[in-house]
């Protein structure tokens, strides 16, 4: 393609200017990659922080709602009373568990009985949120066994694991007995097997772990479960998987995002801010290309005029400038992607004394394909204005100048 030859020759005719132009594009693309990797990295870190010790999806029985039943004469109505004594439970949970185990998107599951209770130690009473689980799946949702600071994580038949702040509040330590009292007033003496520290105050102060076997008689649930907690391979797919599980099991499936609406709002705002910065960096790149090519078209008016005079078509002239834009865009975007990846990879190695990254960049999430395509396409579009102006040049006027 001869237009490509001409375009290349024009670019090489002033290597310093072309290098500067490409460097400008590469710099803009590097900034785009960095911002994308940072925004994504922040989102990943925040999501990880939030979901590290909690489920990605919670399966629970549908909420029972008191319904008004209209009578035929419309004068009277009756209300179906919802029992508040009977716990909401998943009676036949085995099929749901089997379904979850068959899903490749599911990383771990934890069938649970959750409820409220009090721990009584002498005069001290503390409310606790109880999570009763199969000891074999203790770490399925939250890695409790790795966070035991005293004692161990073996729950046994009468064991209980409590958080470090709860232990401090009640003056408990591992090996000591504590009176467990359910919200239905059922008491049982349990032994503190271990004390854990997650670093999250709500967990360390309010949560206690029992085995399912221990919890069943205490919560009057000889067979059922109150909830099934699910961890996914990709937390970002929680909404889709939750919708599928709700459809498949009839259970209420709540993705983690719904439980953390404010976080999701913050992530969305953060993503929008990132998009704005990306947009501005791209626009500055494209304005640079358009102005440089406009200058080039102006500088070459005489040459363009003579080409037009000896019959070279306006399409050919336009193609020369569009191809220059394409080449600048492709080369600049390619260099920018490589330098952006290198920059992000280097930043990812910088950590503080605790081993936490100084900037939570995710080098693999730099949006490389998108920025390469957007820059290349944008560069072509940016070159259209100078290309059109060059193609429309009146040969006589250009030659006479």
């Amino acid at each position, binding site marked *: 393609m001869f237009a490509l*030859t001409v375009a290349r020759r024009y670019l090489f005719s002033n290597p310093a200017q072309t290098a500067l132009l490409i460097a400008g594009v590469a710099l803009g693309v590097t900034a785009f990659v960095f911002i994308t990797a940072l925004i994504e990295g922040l989102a990943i870190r925040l999501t990880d922080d939030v979901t590290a010790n909690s489920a990605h999806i919670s399966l629970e029985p549908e909420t029972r709602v008191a319904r008004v039943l209209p009578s035929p004469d419309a004068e009277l109505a009756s209300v179906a009373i919802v029992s508040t004594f009977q716990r909401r439970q998943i009676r036949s949970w085995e099929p749901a568990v089997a379904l979850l185990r068959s899903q490749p998107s599911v990383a771990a599951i934890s069938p649970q009985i959750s409820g409220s209770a009090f721990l009584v130690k002498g005069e001290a009473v503390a409310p606790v949120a109880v999570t009763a689980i199969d000891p074999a799946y203790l770490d399925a949702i939250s890695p409790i066994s790795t966070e035991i600071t005293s004692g161990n994580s073996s729950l046994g038949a009468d064991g209980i694991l409590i958080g470090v702040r709860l232990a401090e509040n009640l003056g408990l330590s591992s090996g000591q007995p504590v009176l467990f009292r359910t919200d239905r007033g059922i008491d049982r003496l349990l032994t503190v097997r271990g004390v854990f520290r997650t670093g999250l105050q709500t967990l360390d102060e309010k949560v206690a772990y029992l085995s399912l076997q221990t919890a069943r008689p205490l919560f009057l649930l000889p067979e059922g479960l109150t909830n099934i907690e699910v961890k996914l391979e990709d937390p970002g797919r929680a909404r889709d998987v939750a919708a599928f599980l709700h459809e498949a099991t009839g259970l209420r499936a709540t993705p983690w995002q719904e439980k953390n609406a404010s976080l999701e709002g913050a992530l969305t705002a953060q993503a929008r801010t990132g998009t704005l910065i990306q947009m501005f960096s791209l626009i500055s790149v494209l304005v640079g290309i358009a102005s440089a090519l406009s200058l080039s078209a102006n500088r070459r008016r005489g*040459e363009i005029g003579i080409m037009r005079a000896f*019959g*070279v*078509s306006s399409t050919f002239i336009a193609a020369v400038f569009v191809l220059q834009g394409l080449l600048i865009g492709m080369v600049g975007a390619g260099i920018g992607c490589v330098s952006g990846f290198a920059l992000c990879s280097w930043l990812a190695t910088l950590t503080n004394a605790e081993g936490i990254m100084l900037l939570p960049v995710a080098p693999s999430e730099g949006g490389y394909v998108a920025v390469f395509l957007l820059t290349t396409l944008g560069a072509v579009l940016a070159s259209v204005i100078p290309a059109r102006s060059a193609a429309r040049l009146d040969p006589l006027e250009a030659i006479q100048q």
Partner: protein
Amino acid sequence: MNDVLEARAIGMTFRNGDDFTEVLKNVDVTLQPGELAALLGASGSGKSTFLSIAGLLLRPTTGAITIAGQRVDQLSDAERAEFRNTRLGFIFQFHHLLPDFTATENVAFPAAAPAGGITPAMRKRARELLARVGLSDRLDFLVTRLSGGQKQRVAIARALMNKPELILADEPTGSLDRVAAEQVLDLMREVNREDKATFLICTHDEQVAARCTRRITLKDGRVEGAWEEHPVVT
């Protein structure tokens, strides 16, 4: 035999706001094949305007232009561009070569652009033309490395690339020193004589006109006097 150029009743009026300037008035010009004609006139006489009209770079306000038997004043812009490319050759006062290309590439350019590249046949012809204008030792030189006279000879070779029926030259020696100008004029005469190429050379230089076989003088936008055969000064 068809006239190479037949311009009938050409009128050209330029408008600038409410001002109208009539540059050409009812101009009739005819060129026979193989003529080397000088178009003379003082500055503002309309000779460059006529050359631009003959070269399809400008549309006349009135009149008709026929080149090599084809009526061309009513062609579309794209058709005019194609006609210029295939049937006309241009030599300008300032060579207007493409500085980023070699002499061979510059000469081949008018053929290469529409074809999508320089074919071996084009390269061969370009080199032959350059050899003919005395630049066989400068074939692959960037034109920026050539002297003014050499550049103008490249421009002549470029004008011949597509074997045009009419070559239009606008002050082709205007930017050259006397020696280089003589060489360029000799070259054009040689091409005219050997190839039977038809030239219309716009000039205000009597010495250039003296080397041509015919002369047409424009004064105040009109052809002055009758067509005259002119004895060639050698």
